[in-house]
């Protein structure tokens, strides 16, 4: 009897392990069309270009030789000297509080700007160079290398500025970091255009127009799926943490949280005080509904986004939420970064269909088209997310 029981338990765990392994492989490594990651690349790159381009006027205030946080402060923080300079280390030792000392250890950040001579013209030149790499990254020119440089440029900018970052930057860094693991310029890029041009020139087939080269589809790759999955899981973590942590706050329970953000006139784009005069309870109802909407969306996102039924609804809610945040808080670039992350939940087929519908406006007669996507010989049908 014991033998049969042990064997049954063993079989159960063997099956469980095999099922998990199969599921893991399918989830992370199934080859997919890189169209979705290409769109993510374009949107991430465009947001990076915007953030760095508009910063040109104040870049020396942020990362110049006499920036808000100068290199003297950065060096002091990185070396840990600031603990002595402020007397903190001595006081913590006097109070025998070594845990506190350990918790206050300086962050380990890296930036290209840390190693540059502190001359403003040089800092401006390097910033402009990184801006250029962000433009080439967006356009998909020398995509692999410009991806690395765009990520490095933004990381260096944020860590050198030290106190200039906010939520948008962490999302942009996350997206550009993950994109380095695949060739996001495999389609919808100047790289693709160059490749297709060279290939067809050899075949003396230069009839199609330039957009056809740019939009030409690429072979499915496992790394495109891998990157898409990394972004998807990370987006679930972001929304899940943001939603669950809100449950610690009284205003998120009382329904006044959104009202408070509407009154934060340091952020807002318009005055919302008129809502208070619409009636005794109007403002609290508007706020309570918007607060409940935010909580429902953020907490349910990690669970419901994986289901076919809820995915379009949640993506529409994401657009609504970030449009609202953009309108109320003026955080348009943050919304753009978050929605770019949400794009990872749109299948490549759906993305192709959408691009064909909106940008190309015509069906190509050649090729075996399924759902707007031209299949290649030997291509496996991707498993839907």
């Amino acid at each position, binding site marked *: 009897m014991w033998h049969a029981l042990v064997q049954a338990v063993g079989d159960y765990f063997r099956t469980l392990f095999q099922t998990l392994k199969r599921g893991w492989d399918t989830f*992370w*490594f199934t*080859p997919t069309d890189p169209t979705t990651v290409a769109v993510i690349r374009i949107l991430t790159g465009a947001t990076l270009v915007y953030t760095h381009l508009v*910063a040109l*006027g*104040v870049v020396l*205030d942020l990362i110049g030789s*006499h*920036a*808000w946080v*100068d290199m003297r*402060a950065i060096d002091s*923080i990185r070396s840990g000297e*600031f*603990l002595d*300079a*402020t007397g*903190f280390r001595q006081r913590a030792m006097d109070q025998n*509080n070594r845990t506190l000392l350990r*918790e206050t250890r300086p*962050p*380990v950040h*890296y930036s290209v700007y840390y190693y540059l001579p502190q001359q403003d013209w040089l800092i401006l030149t390097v910033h402009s160079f990184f801006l250029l790499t962000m433009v080439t990254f967006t356009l998909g020119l020398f995509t692999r290398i410009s991806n690395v440089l765009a990520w490095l440029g933004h*990381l260096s900018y944020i*860590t050198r500025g030290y*106190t*200039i*970052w906010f*939520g948008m*930057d*962490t999302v942009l*860094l996350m997206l550009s*970091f993950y994109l380095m693991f695949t060739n996001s310029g495999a389609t919808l890029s100047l790289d693709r255009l160059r490749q297709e041009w060279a290939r067809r020139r050899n075949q003396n087939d230069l009839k199609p127009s330039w957009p056809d080269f740019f939009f030409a589809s690429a*072979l*499915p790759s*496992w790394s495109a799926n*891998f990157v898409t999955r*990394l972004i998807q899981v*990370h987006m679930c*973590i972001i929304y899940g*943490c*943001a939603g669950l*942590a*809100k449950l610690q*706050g009284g*205003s*998120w329970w009382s329904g*006044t*949280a959104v*009202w*408070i953000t509407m*009154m*934060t*006139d*340091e952020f807002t784009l318009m005055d919302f005080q008129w809502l*208070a*005069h619409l009636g005794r309870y109007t*403002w609290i109802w508007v706020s309570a509904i918007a607060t409940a909407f935010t909580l429902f969306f953020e907490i349910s996102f990690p669970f419901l986004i994986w289901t076919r039924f809820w995915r379009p609804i949640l993506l529409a809610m994401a657009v609504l939420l970030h449009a609202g945040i953009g309108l109320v808080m003026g955080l348009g*670039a943050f919304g753009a970064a978050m929605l770019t992350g949400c794009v990872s939940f749109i299948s490549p087929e759906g993305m192709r269909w959408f691009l064909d519908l909106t940008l190309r406006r015509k069906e190509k007669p050649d090729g075996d088209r399924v759902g707007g996507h031209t299949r290649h010989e030997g*291509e496996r049908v991707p498993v839907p997310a």
Partner: protein
Amino acid sequence: MRSNNPPSGWPTHWVKVVASLFVAWHFYSIFGAVTATSTSMLHPAPLPALQIARTSYMYREALFLHNAYRFYVPDPGPVQTMWFRLEYEGPKGRSIAYWYELPRRDDFSFRMSYQRHLSVSMLLQMQGYDPTKPEQLHPLSETLQSSYVRHIAYKFPKHPRAEEAGELKKIDVYHAGRVMYPTGDHIRRGLTLDDPRWYRPVFYASYAPDGTKLELDPAKKFLRQSLPELLQGVLSQSEEQASFSDLFPVTAEFLLYDYHPLRFEMGYESKQALELLNPPAPMARLLREVPEALDIGEVINQRVYADLVLRMHQWMKVRRPVRPLEEDLPPLGFRPVPQKPTAPTGADKPPALLPNSGRPAIGN
């Protein structure tokens, strides 16, 4: 035996192993980042999470993946800004001040630049206070604040609006923010968003232009720290505290130490003096609401200061009265019978300053 040739587009076995290990490690470190952050003093991070997070600290920090993604938690809080008072040498041994507000919206053409500067102010104050010496900022913030002072000193080595001003002597740093944001009921009662009384500027420290912290002279210490606390204490015994603002003492000091010398000793017109001093927006708004405060006399002392603070408080109560709402009143039938109107007593007018006839206008 495992095939070395995976199907088209699929990775090899070892690539899968390496990629899987990366995924496991990466999300393990992200897990550390999101769980090892304390939302507030009341919601500390669990100790096991802190210990787990330490193992991947270097990886997270190097890639800037340390965000806990807790946007507007536990509650959306007031935005913290900073005010800098730059003191330059002036003629006749006097000082000329210039105020710089970080950030002021009008100074930026692009929203993104404004947002970055808002982060400069907010991230400094987000660190909180030094756990070993609570009256002092966190050591990281102390270091950053010294750097901010050096930046300001570099940016404004000369007074941007007064040619007669000399070298920059010192920089006072104030941390400013709102006490809270008005609810819909506040607004309906007349306590609107632009009411200057919502602001709470607090003097933090004085610095030399090279970022060294200076000892505060006893007279200023009394004005900036002891007297506001004393006034708050006196007012806390009554209902008056609700409409008292920390902006009043700071504005009174601005009037007596910055505005008064320009107006009465250097002969500037009131408008000119204000333009030259560039007061922060809430302070300028308060002075627009209570222009009587600008009519201070030629002699000043600490009693004048206290008097001015209390008068600003009284003036604002008259200028921005709190209107009772329908729901504040007792039910119909229980309300007191309205009295017949009597001749105006002048009680609804703000108290006027005594005439300025070459002697202290306030405080006597």
